[in-house]
């Protein structure tokens, strides 16, 4: 079974440019998470989807970040415009089932973003 797939693996952009990250969760997993992991830190939740609905986006900086999960499968996270402080690893995770913290989260390899 394929795991969580993220692309690209690496992205280097100049500040003020837009950037997008893509995530394909494990087949059948209806809950999808986007995390940001700053250097030397643990992952921090940006947004959680249950199917196509964003049920928790309280930590998403909405002035420049946006996300979508059309059809409740793949998801895209976008930053426009990017700032120097956005340099981080962006992780996607998925779980089978909704809401319960018992559901194991499976992580992709992440996208490492460098903003110059």
């Amino acid at each position, binding site marked *: 079974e394929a795991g*969580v797939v*993220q692309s690209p693996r690496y992205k280097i952009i100049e500040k003020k440019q837009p950037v997008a990250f893509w995530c394909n969760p494990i087949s059948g997993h209806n*809950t999808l*998470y986007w995390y940001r992991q700053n250097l*030397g*830190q*643990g*992952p*921090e*939740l940006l947004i*959680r989807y249950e199917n196509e609905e964003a049920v*928790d986006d309280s930590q998403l900086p909405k002035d420049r970040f946006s996300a979508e999960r059309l059809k409740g499968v793949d998801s895209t996270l976008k930053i426009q415009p990017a700032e120097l402080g956005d340099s981080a690893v962006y*992780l996607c*995770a998925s*779980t089978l089932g*909704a*809401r*319960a*913290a*018992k*559901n*194991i*989260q*499976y*992580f*992709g*390899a*992440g996208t490492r973003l460098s903003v110059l």
Partner: protein
Amino acid sequence: AQSVTQPDIHITVSEGASLELRCNYSYGATPYLFWYVQSPGQGLQLLLKYFSGDTLVQGIKGFEAEFKRSQSSFNLRKPSVHWSDAAEYFCAVGRSRGSQGNLIFGKGTKLSVKP
């Protein structure tokens, strides 16, 4: 609010030596607890989890962890470390009450293994 503290930023052990990584949590009820490992350039892989019951849980790769309610701790242990265990380890807590499925992660402990 939930929080997780991993007091050790970086630990170095010799190959074959025992290992203990510390994790303390803050949560008003019995939490769900997890340990994840992250190798360089990789995502996080679940090592083990605790939901309820036996406070000593076994995981993959020979790891185990013990939940101690009185100390609000969930320390990770391994009796004999292998060079391939060098990685970063994250403790995480999930809420056992309410409908949230979110995890709160600690800042991680980087493990280096000396030959």
